[in-house]
């Protein structure tokens, strides 16, 4: 959003530098239950983004003063690995990761039935192994699959994807170049069964019309991500059943 480049981000045919059209998202791969010591886990790849999420709980909330006597709290920790970006990222929480942790936990609180577990805490850890723009969406996508995998009661699974503007075009799922040299980035997360928006931010400038188009595009793509999330969770158990059937023979 800040830098300038001579790069042509969208060519005259409407093609982007990685060969996508404006309304195409990157390749998405989701896998549930990848960690055995966590209560629930998920691994997500969106293009070159690689994200691992783990869920623990519900368990007793520490420190005590954070406990809520009427519902569980969701403690989320978004962390970027030092090797996740091309210039080494200084390890530890910074202003950006505190913000992302907060918005992700607030988005998840909207779907998790927290009132079933008063005084407890559900801990979500999101590790960014490799970043290429759109990690907050990838992180939230992974976290909600991990929550469902942990068997935590929730209303729905939250998919997230960003839309934005680069080279004057409204684009879906910006990559790093489009994010760095584009004009705007709008991450969106929804509750698919009701189309409620649980996360919406905007970095940069767009007109009202462009913004509406971006949100519409992102909501549409969220439904595609949602199908992949559901598929990942179901695949985990159909694979189990296959193994068991294999033993039968």
């Amino acid at each position: 959003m800040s830098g300038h480049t001579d790069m042509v981000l969208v060519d005259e045919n409407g093609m982007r530098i990685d060969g996508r059209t404006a309304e195409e998202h990157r390749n998405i791969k989701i896998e549930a239950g990848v960690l055995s010591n966590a209560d629930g886990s998920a691994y997500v790849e969106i293009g070159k983004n690689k994200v691992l999420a783990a869920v623990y709980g519900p368990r007793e909330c520490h420190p005590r003063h954070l406990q809520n006597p009427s519902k569980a709290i969701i403690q989320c920790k978004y962390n970027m690995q030092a090797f996740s970006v091309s210039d080494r990222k200084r390890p530890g929480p910074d202003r950006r990761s505190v913000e992302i942790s907060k918005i992700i936990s607030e988005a998840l609180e909207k779907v998790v039935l927290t009132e079933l577990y008063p005084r407890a805490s559900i801990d979500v850890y999101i590790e960014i192994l490799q970043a290429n723009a759109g990690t907050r969406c990838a992180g939230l996508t992974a976290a909600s699959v991990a929550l469902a995998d942990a068997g935590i009661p929730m209303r729905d699974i939250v998919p997230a994807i960003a839309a934005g503007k680069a080279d004057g075009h409204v684009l879906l799922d910006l990559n790093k170049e489009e994010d760095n040299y584009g004009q705007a980035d709008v991450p969106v997360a929804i509750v698919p069964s009701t189309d409620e928006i649980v996360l919406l931010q905007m970095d940069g400038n767009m007109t009202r019309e462009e913004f509406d188009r971006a949100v519409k595009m992102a909501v549409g793509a969220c439904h595609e991500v949602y199908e992949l999330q559901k598929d990942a969770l179901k695949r985990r158990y159909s694979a189990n059943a296959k193994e068991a059937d294999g033993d039968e023979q």
Partner: protein
Amino acid sequence: MERRNARQTREIVVPGDVLDNSGMKPGENAYVLDGRVHAGVMGVRNVFQNTVGVIPLRGHYMPVSGDTVIGVIIDIGPSNWTVDISAPYPAPLHVNEVPWKVEFGDTSRYLDIGNVVLLKVLSVDENKKISVTMKDSGLRRIEGGRLVSIPYSKVSRIIGKSGSMITMLKNTTDCRIFVGQNGRIWIDGEEENMDAAADAIKMIEAQAQASNLTDKVRAFIENRLPREEDDFEEED
């Protein structure tokens, strides 16, 4: 039989999936939105009369009053013990709820940290405050044997339809086995038999989705403990 019937129509659902839109009532782990029943947790769709719910595949044990559980003492107070029953909340065990007469401050003489006890859940209130008791027949401190943990969602599989699996395990391995509702299992017997029983339990856990599991586990144990079989034959 119930499980095998359920298996034919076994449908895995994830949170948010529509379970029914023809006016059925929501059962366990389900909620209604705009007249449709949605799943509230990942699990297997389960229809019972005119309610539709979800049997969870994973998740934490949530105590229900009346459950018999196996707990580990994790803290001692002057008039109570704190017991870990692998629930999201710790369970306090008050001195009034143990079968001994305990003087104030004398708690550690009866139960120490790390001791394993058989408990019954007395009550769970709406704030999820748990109280447990040891004042019931069969409830006691456990000594000897070993403790195996499985996810609580697999407990029903270990017990089997009207206890078929657990009876088979006890008979074939010649062990004393106690299954707590919270997924902790205590086994006591000959070292070798305990190994076989523990491995059989791990096998049930891994293949919980398979059909005809009781027979498979029996074959597994008979394979593991062939000597046992010979003994029987000689006796015959």
